[in-house]
């Protein structure tokens, strides 16, 4: 078919962020052992409780087996062949952005994340993470006026050890799963957010993760705490250079919302996905979970997953507080030989809890895109409700889509609704748009954005536009 070939051309979009920054880095030797973990902890001048946390996690990890239940296929990862700490060399203590290596600022500039005072984004505070360390955080003083703490997790360990000790690992315990245990043992940096009681965070907070070196893994850790009646919107973006080896990214994100607090967590993930033959690309094994501890608290995940060779990710909500609300809005686009196994878990524990799941999977090329979700109603979750909608769109005839919804209900007085659909962009639809003067590529991208609209509507404004553009880029052949 003529159009099949055209679709193949159209979805071959070169990766824009594949450049490597040439910068001197401090790396430790490859491999993982107690000594390595002690070394990382020492480099970061960590208190004893954290070293103990890491070592315990490492002991657990050694006894665990890599999970194989996901609908993913990849060569075994050699965990001794990875560098667990890599940081750009710079002065020990940086007091202002002026002291940050210009090469680093330039890198983030090129990624569309300007950090310098003159150019920084006006409505978003950014924490920029380069390989294993946080480079800079903008708008810190302004946020501090509102009592909001936004800094790298390393700084938080030094300056807010009490909060870290109280909350770290309470949502995702080290023993939770293989990759979470690994992260707990070796995490190097990430973002920390604390919103005090009654405060609505005056601007969006954002972390931007950049993997630069090819042989080191990235293991960042994010912890967000929203006290009573506070609210925050947090954005996360990611890119990596093109290497022909696979790079491991195993992050952990923990969110905690107390009474009447709300956290909105949005991700646009655009890690390098490997080439057309599936060589290289990021292995993205991430554990993201939020705990609605308080009454009427709300945690909302929205994600646009377009990159990575492999995505293994299930942002989840534990709905403990009465009338708490969990949401998951997801667009996952896979192309070429990409594989994604993504979805969510909504664990209803408290009474009158509510959750919504809207998942849109788009598979092109020879890719494999699976939705995997769990909705669980516990014995006390009376009067709780869930609504799930999982739609898949296939482009071309080589791609595949799966939906694995798991439902467990121990509470007869609760409601679970699940809808699923699969569609293919039909030749007739394309011809209709083309016969109205709309170019083939634009027609495909119009239909894809139309398909994702329910999810894009949930994203913060700046992100929605970026997500739309990103999908179009992934699908158009015209932009290099």
């Amino acid at each position, binding site marked *: 078919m003529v159009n099949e070939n055209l679709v193949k051309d159209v979805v071959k979009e070169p990766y824009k962020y594949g450049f490597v920054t040439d910068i001197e880095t401090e790396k430790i030797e490859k491999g993982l052992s107690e000594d390595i973990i002690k070394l990382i902890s020492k480099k970061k001048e960590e208190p004893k409780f954290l070293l103990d946390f890491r070592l315990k996690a490492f002991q657990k990890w050694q006894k665990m087996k890599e999970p194989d239940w996901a609908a993913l296929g990849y060569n075994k990862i050699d965990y001794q062949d990875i560098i667990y700490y890599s940081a750009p060399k710079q002065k020990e203590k940086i007091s202002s952005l002026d002291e940050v290596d210009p090469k680093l600022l330039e890198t983030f500039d090129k990624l569309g994340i300007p950090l310098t005072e003159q150019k920084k984004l006006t409505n978003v505070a950014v924490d920029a993470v380069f390989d294993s360390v946080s480079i800079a955080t903008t708008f810190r003083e302004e946020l501090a006026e509102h009592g909001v703490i936004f800094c790298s997790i390393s700084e938080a360990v030094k300056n807010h050890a009490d909060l870290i000790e109280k909350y770290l690992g309470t949502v995702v315990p080290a023993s939770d799963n293989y990759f979470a245990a690994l992260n707990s043992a070796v995490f190097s940096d990430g973002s920390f957010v604390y919103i005090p009681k009654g405060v609505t965070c005056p601007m969006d907070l954002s972390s931007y993760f950049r993997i630069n070196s090819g042989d080191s893994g990235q293991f960042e850790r994010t912890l967000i705490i929203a006290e009573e009646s506070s609210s925050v919107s947090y954005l996360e973006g990611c890119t990596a250079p093109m290497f022909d080896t696979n790079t491991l990214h195993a992050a952990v994100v923990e969110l905690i919302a107390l009474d009447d607090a709300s956290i909105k967590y949005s991700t646009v993930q655009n890690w390098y996905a490997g080439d057309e033959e599936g060589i290289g690309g990021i292995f993205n094994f991430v554990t993201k979970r939020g705990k609605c501890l308080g009454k009427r608290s709300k945690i909302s995940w929205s994600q646009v997953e377009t990159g990575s060779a492999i995505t293994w990710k299930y942002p989840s909500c534990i709905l403990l507080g009465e009338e708490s609300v969990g949401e998951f809005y997801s667009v996952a686009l896979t192309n070429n030989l990409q594989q994604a196994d993504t979805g969510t878990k909504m664990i209803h524990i408290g009474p009158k809890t509510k959750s919504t799941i809207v998942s849109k999977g788009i598979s092109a090329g020879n890719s494999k895109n699976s939705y995997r979700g769990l909705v669980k109603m516990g014995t006390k979750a009376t009067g709780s409700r869930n609504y799930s909608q999982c739609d898949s769109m296939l482009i071309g005839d080589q791609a595949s889509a799966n939906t694995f919804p798991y439902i467990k209900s121990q509470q007869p007085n609760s409601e679970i609704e699940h809808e699923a659909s699969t569609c293919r962009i039909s030749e007739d639809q394309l011809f209709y748009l083309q016969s109205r003067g*709309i170019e083939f590529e634009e027609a495909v991208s119009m239909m894809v954005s*139309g398909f994702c609209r329910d999810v894009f509507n949930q994203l913060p404004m700046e992100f929605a536009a970026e997500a739309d553009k990103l999908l179009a880029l992934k699908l158009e052949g015209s932009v290099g």
Partner: protein
Amino acid sequence: MQSKMKESDPILEVENLSASTDNLPILKGVSLTVYPGEIHAIMGRNGCGKSTLSKIIAGHPSYKITNGDIKFLGENINSLEPEERSQSGIFLGFQYPIEIPGVSNLEFLRVSTNARRKFLNKEELDTFDFEELVKEKLEIVKMDHAFLSRSVNQGFSGGEKKRNEILQMALLEPKIAILDETDSGLDIDALRIVASGIKKISNAQTGIILITHYQRLLDEIKPNYVHVMSDGQIIKTGESDLALELEEKGYEWTDNFIKET
């Protein structure tokens, strides 16, 4: 047939066109010439190749031209993409307009209109200017503004879909419009709206091809020529009274022409 002197050049020339899909021949040597200001009707049984002819002129990728040429304003367009044909002024009104979930009708119409305007070196319209233009055109098909915020053709009734087609024709201002059974599935009121819309949009510079089974559309829009198709060929061409005769005698009557040829 078209031997009388024409003052201007033809808009569309279909010359001895044969085409197939999946190696199955559908058109077997069709010739048709449309001059500015002319209205042609093509009639014939289901499966005679009428819709195929319209799709091939619009550039549908499922059909392969095996012989002959399609010329638009003197240029051969056999290998042009559907979007290029549309931009240059060929319009196909679909028999079954396609539903596009999630894509707003307004945005679709705007992108489409701008693609044509760009070709004509006219300024592309932003959302506000386009709203103005579309409001004016909505009048022609007596459509409510609410249609614009819905997804393209999704959940539209048969009549609404057809009116949406004519709205697109009004926005695109084509040189030639091929309307494939635009009258089917319309009640009398809707038919009148559609027919008067077509008349308002067309002028001495445009050509129209009406593909239809019924006389009632031709009562509203009187064709200059009527062609009868059968088994991938035009077997008879006449003036507007041919349609009346056909209505009276049925397609069986036309079978005789095949025997003659």
